[in-house]
């Protein structure tokens, strides 16, 4: 296996582990589409970062940090917009719909402004939406690896608090942790989206957040089982699909990962259905 393939596989497996496990929490809270909207919020920051690099004549080595800072900021602003609308009495769906329209609209207007300086094209945006795992480098993979480490430690230390936060909001509120964990969740969502963006793209990323938890759900009975099982499924399927995409099946990696997860979900649901009916699952 050559170095580039190894980096792509490491990137995909870490993204799978990260998104799978975090997605279990997101799915239990029913906030998958909020994460999707937050992901779309990143785009305007990414577009603006391209302009900032050109307008201020910054060195190319600053491109990645500026992209992270502005992507993080724009996505956080979109999340704040969602929470503001909810606070104003808008429903979850209505606040998400308005926020995603705002994210798309601002991205396109900013793109027009940045394009006037010739710094970016809509092709770049399409790449953001679709992802391009084949071009992963160690620099792009490192943030996901670091986040995986932090998330793993946080889960080990805060397992009980996280359990209450998603499944027993009353207990979490009594412990005074709810608002703090809400804030951590918002920050973590944005960081996660940014770290997994190069590999999977925005549209397929939400599939990685949702499908592993759905695959594991019929087979586990505990919170920890769901989170760890989702991480395992996410990591294994991503790695396998990445390996297939690198050689056997020359198809777009992100799409192959999501379609493979879909196939596992369908088979798993079928097997779970048979098990419920009393037929032993094979």
């Amino acid at each position: 296996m050559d170095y580039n393939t190894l980096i792509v596989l490491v990137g995909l497996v870490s993204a799978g582990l990260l998104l799978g496990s975090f997605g279990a929490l997101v799915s239990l809270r029913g906030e998958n589409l909020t994460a999707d909207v937050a992901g779309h919020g990143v785009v305007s920051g990414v577009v603006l970062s391209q302009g900032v690099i050109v307008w201020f004549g910054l060195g190319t080595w600053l491109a990645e940090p500026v992209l992270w800072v502005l992507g993080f900021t724009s996505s956080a602003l979109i999340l704040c917009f969602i929470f503001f609308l909810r606070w104003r009495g808008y429903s979850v769906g209505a606040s998400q719909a308005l926020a995603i329209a705002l994210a798309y609209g601002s991205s396109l207007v900013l793109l027009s402004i940045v394009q006037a300086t010739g710094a970016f094209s809509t092709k770049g945006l399409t790449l953001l939406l679709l992802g391009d795992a084949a071009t992963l480098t160690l620099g792009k993979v490192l943030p996901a690896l670091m986040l995986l480490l932090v998330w793993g430690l946080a889960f080990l230390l805060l397992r009980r608090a996280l359990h209450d936060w998603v499944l027993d909001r009353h207990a979490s509120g009594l412990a005074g942790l709810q608002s703090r964990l809400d804030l951590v969740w918002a920050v973590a969502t944005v960081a996660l989206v940014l770290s997994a963006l190069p590999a999977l793209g925005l549209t397929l990323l939400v599939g990685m957040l949702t499908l592993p938890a759905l695959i594991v759900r019929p087979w586990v009975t505990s919170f920890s089982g769901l989170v760890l099982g989702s991480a395992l499924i996410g990591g294994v399927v991503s790695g396998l699909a990445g390996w297939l995409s690198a050689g056997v099946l020359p198809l777009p990696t992100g799409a192959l990962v999501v379609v493979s997860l879909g196939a596992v979900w369908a088979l798993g649901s079928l097997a779970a259905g048979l098990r419920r009916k009393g037929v032993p699952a094979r």
Partner: protein
Amino acid sequence: MMVLSQDLPIVVTLFGAAVAAIIAGSLLLPRGQIMVSEASSHAVLPGMVLGFLLSGEHGWLMLIGAIAVISLFLGLTICLRRRHRLGASVEIAALFPLFFGAGVTLLSLSGLDDTAAIDLDHILFGSLELILWLDVLSPADLLRPGAWAAAPDQLLLALSGAGLALLLALAAYPLLNRSLMDGQAFALMSPVASFGLRGLEIVLVATASAVCLRTAGVVIAVALFGAPIIGAWSLARRLWQAWLIAGVITLLGLGLSYVLSAAMLSQFGIEARLSGLFALCLVALAIAAPLATGRRTAKRPLA
């Protein structure tokens, strides 16, 4: 100043797409399913690719493929929600990346990703600025049948979609109104009536999604489905009032985006994408609508 051959087709196309989207959005919003619009705009991809592969052109078969796939997506969403109770909108989040992934895979397998036949860029961001009606140079030209024969495809498609949506929605208005305003009455409907109503809703939403995407792109489709009707629901008491107010919000949004576009061009020399400005104006108006009338909350709860 507005140029008829350039701006009129854009305005008419957007308003036609808006009529279809407003009707569909009004059915989704009170059920808490408004994000179906964003999801179906991505889920549509395999239908468009299959339609193109079968016909070899960007014609009606591509539109039918889009409507069929969105209908399938909506049907699966309803089925999963009823049978598995996965959680709020989890079924939407699970299905639309799958459909989109299947579309990207199909594009790659068919070799179309290396050609410009299905341009994702065009689907996502639209190309309103390319809608031209060169046969119309003065208002009198609108009365010439020859001018309509040469009208842009997007304009005709948007008007057809709007006409169909209006026709179906008006024909089933009492049923739709009752099902949205009185959930208990809807639960007491006969299974056949309930099934028929769900089928009609799927047709309306799928047609509106496909028409919006083919004419204006994902950005506009997402904005048109959500923003006008969200603004309108906070002011309206009845379904038809919501449709009318949403139409007014759309027209105001169009006017405002044209003014902003002209201002940006004259002041900064920047030609801003109309679709982006339109989406931003719609969001601003949707939020401003209840504030402008001094209402702090919606008249109807947005489920």
